[in-house]
């Protein structure tokens, strides 16, 4: 598939999960393709980084589900902040572990999972729809019933994949990309390189095979597809370019870097360095 073909399967109003974490292994080439489309009114579910910043800045988000939005080396995401401070979208702010439980519940086909996280905090105040459950056993303890975060589609980026959708991460952290795929009706995987299935385990152990083909709908080869976020060990975060992103007014950044296709993006980035 191509990034454009992935986007052609998405629709306005969908609930879209985006893998990675903060400014790490984000499917940015797919996000850029999404930004070139007219798709909007999205519910975005993400351990947020520049994916959220860009989609929020360009007005594509109706509702965000997140525990944070950060660029890691730049703690506060400026474009996200600006959008949030002008009240650009609805927010379901939950804790990192609640978010994880929501993905797990969705992948397990459960309506919710019980947990302590959230009790006593204002997460309960700002999400009046959150409910609690009481343990049916002797302890009788009260828990938050974190609802499943079901996704219409998921976008994730990994180091390698085969054409069937078996996806491999080679860095130290899988993040939650497998759960995003399992929680979604359709999952699209971009990767640095598409290889033959037999190649996947030639140089890496089988436990690096994070994504299973039965959970993946389509694979796109997008070299440098996580840029400017990190994609260890293929490349680190492009800190200089991330700083440029963080300090450039959004309309200017969009015009300079996102006006054309992925090749034009790469050329524009190349001119920067």
């Amino acid at each position: 598939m191509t990034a454009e073909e992935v986007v052609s399967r998405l629709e306005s109003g969908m609930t879209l999960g985006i893998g990675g974490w903060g400014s790490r292994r984000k499917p940015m080439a797919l996000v850029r393709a999404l930004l070139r489309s007219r798709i909007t009114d999205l519910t975005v579910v993400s351990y947020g980084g520049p994916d959220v910043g860009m989609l929020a800045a360009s007005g594509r988000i109706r509702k965000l589900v997140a525990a944070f939005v950060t660029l890691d080396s730049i703690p506060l995401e400026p474009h996200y902040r600006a959008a949030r401070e002008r009240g650009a979208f609805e927010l379901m702010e939950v804790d990192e572990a609640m978010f994880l439980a929501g993905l797990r519940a969705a992948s397990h086909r459960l309506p919710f999972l019980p947990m302590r996280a959230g009790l006593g905090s204002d997460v309960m105040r700002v999400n009046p729809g959150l409910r609690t459950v009481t343990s049916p056993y002797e302890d009788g303890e009260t828990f938050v019933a974190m609802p499943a975060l079901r996704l219409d589609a998921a976008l994730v980026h990994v180091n390698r994949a085969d054409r069937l959708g078996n996806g491999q991460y080679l860095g130290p952290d899988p993040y939650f990309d497998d759960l995003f795929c399992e929680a979604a009706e359709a999952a699209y995987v971009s990767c640095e390189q598409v290889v033959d299935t037999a190649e996947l385990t030639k140089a890496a152990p089988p436990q690096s095979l994070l994504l299973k083909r039965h959970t993946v709908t389509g694979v796109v080869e997008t070299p440098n597809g996580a840029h400017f976020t990190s994609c260890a060990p293929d490349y680190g975060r492009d800190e200089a370019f991330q700083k440029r992103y963080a300090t450039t007014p959004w309309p200017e950044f969009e015009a300079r870097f996102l006006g054309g296709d992925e090749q034009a993006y790469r050329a524009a980035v190349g001119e920067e360095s």
Partner: protein
Amino acid sequence: MSEAVAAREVTRAEYCVIACAEAWRDAGEILASPMGLIPSVGARLARRTFAPDLLLTDGEALLVGLDGTVEGWLPYRAHLDLVTTGRRHVMMGASQIDRFGNQNISCIGAWERPKRQLLGVRGAPVNTLNNPTSYWVPRHSRRVFVEKVDMVCGVGYDRAAGARFHRIPRVVSDLGVFDFATPDHSMRLASLHPGVTVEEVRDATAFELTVPDEVPETRAPSAHELRLIREVIDPANSRAREVGS
């Protein structure tokens, strides 16, 4: 260098390192999760001295020994699961903290339409309900030590309703150390860093703080600890960038 001479030259940042390190004293075989520079120096000092069994990460997905030797794998999902086992003591930052230890890192102003959007709740709710959570505030002021936080992320004693695993062992700032050892679990001044007065702390705190009749000084680092801080753990003196002298 004698102990006495060393003590005279100890910087405020180094007292803060000691105050943070003490949070992990005798903690046993648990994960220390320091957020911020001085807590990180403190955790590594504790690991090298009075808390030798502590587990530490490289800041990413690996558990590492003092020389950087990898001894374990702790990606985010495993880290979040470890929190629920309770075998962890985290020291988080706080954009706001109140009298009962409610902490905010999410936003300033009304949550519905914040004046300033900050990080988000992150893991503060899960941390405070599951493992001991301490706080580090590098610049103690009335903007941080507030009467009421705008968004409760980390849960304080008045809202924890006796939750089984809720505990806030200490709050360390550039002025002193605070705990909740009062009948109603409100904040108490536990020690002052040398050179700081009770009045200074009261002026920089927007809520009524319990102050005992006798307030001890934060203990000084030993000559051995000072050597470790200055020569081994933080030779670049980056701690001075977080707390000036």
